């Protein structure tokens, strides 16, 4: 591996940062879920880079578990979005203030 592992870490950090900024500044709840996907992909890049760096295949196994969590999150999150859109007919997160104190 001629590309040093720090390059992968920088790339993963940039992607994770973009996802986190997206979660914080967007109002559309679907874009928020897409940003969560960005963050999960950033962690996956980290896992695979370290798996190559340490010559240990366990990092790739953990990518599978992250993938499982991503799939579950998408299914439940999109179901929640559909339920919200059905009850309020909007998906702007500023309009959901029931749990705000």
């Amino acid at each position, binding site marked *: 591996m001629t*590309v040093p592992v720090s*390059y992968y870490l920088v790339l993963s950090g940039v992607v994770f940062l973009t996802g986190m900024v997206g979660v914080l500044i967007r109002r559309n709840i679907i874009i928020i879920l897409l940003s969560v*996907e960005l963050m999960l992909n950033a962690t*996956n890049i980290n896992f695979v880079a370290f*798996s190559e760096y340490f010559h*240990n295949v366990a990092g790739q196994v953990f990518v599978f578990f992250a993938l*499982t969590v991503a799939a579950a999150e998408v299914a*439940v999150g999109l179901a*929640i979005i559909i339920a919200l859109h059905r009850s309020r007919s909007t998906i702007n997160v500023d309009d959901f203030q029931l749990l705000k104190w």
Partner: protein
Amino acid sequence: MEHFFFFYFAVIIAATSILVVALRNPIYSALSLLIMFFHVAGLYVTLHAEFLAAVQVIVYAGAILVLYLFVVMLLNMKQDERYHRQWPAAAVTGFLLLAEGAVVSMIKGRSAPPAGDAAAEAGGPGNTEALGDVLYSTYLYPFEVASLLLLVAMIGAIILAKRNLLGSEAET
């Protein structure tokens, strides 16, 4: 040559991830996320994780993103609302994380790679075989827990999205 491929994939991944956040139309965001998923799969191939690259394309680009596009087109939302007023907090947090990453990468990054055991070599007898060996022996219990998680998510999605599960008066 590996540097060339890495920088190509890295530039495309960073650009499309910024586009996901910055674009106004959710469909365009989802499509740029699709491009990003393919390039992440290419990055996995350069990291000798070929099976994960295939899984990335199949699961992420094939299943998850199709679900997103389905919901986006089902809801048919307007595209007027964009950012909300939380962006100062986002800017401060992002700047702090960026500074932390810069400091950590400045301090030290070049310790010698540890000598991994040759039995668990990632590119030894084949990536898929090695992955299967580890997944079904060492990580068998987390694997079963992951299947349970998928079952719970499936039932939860059905219950949440179904309109009248227990008759018409049970739903509020």
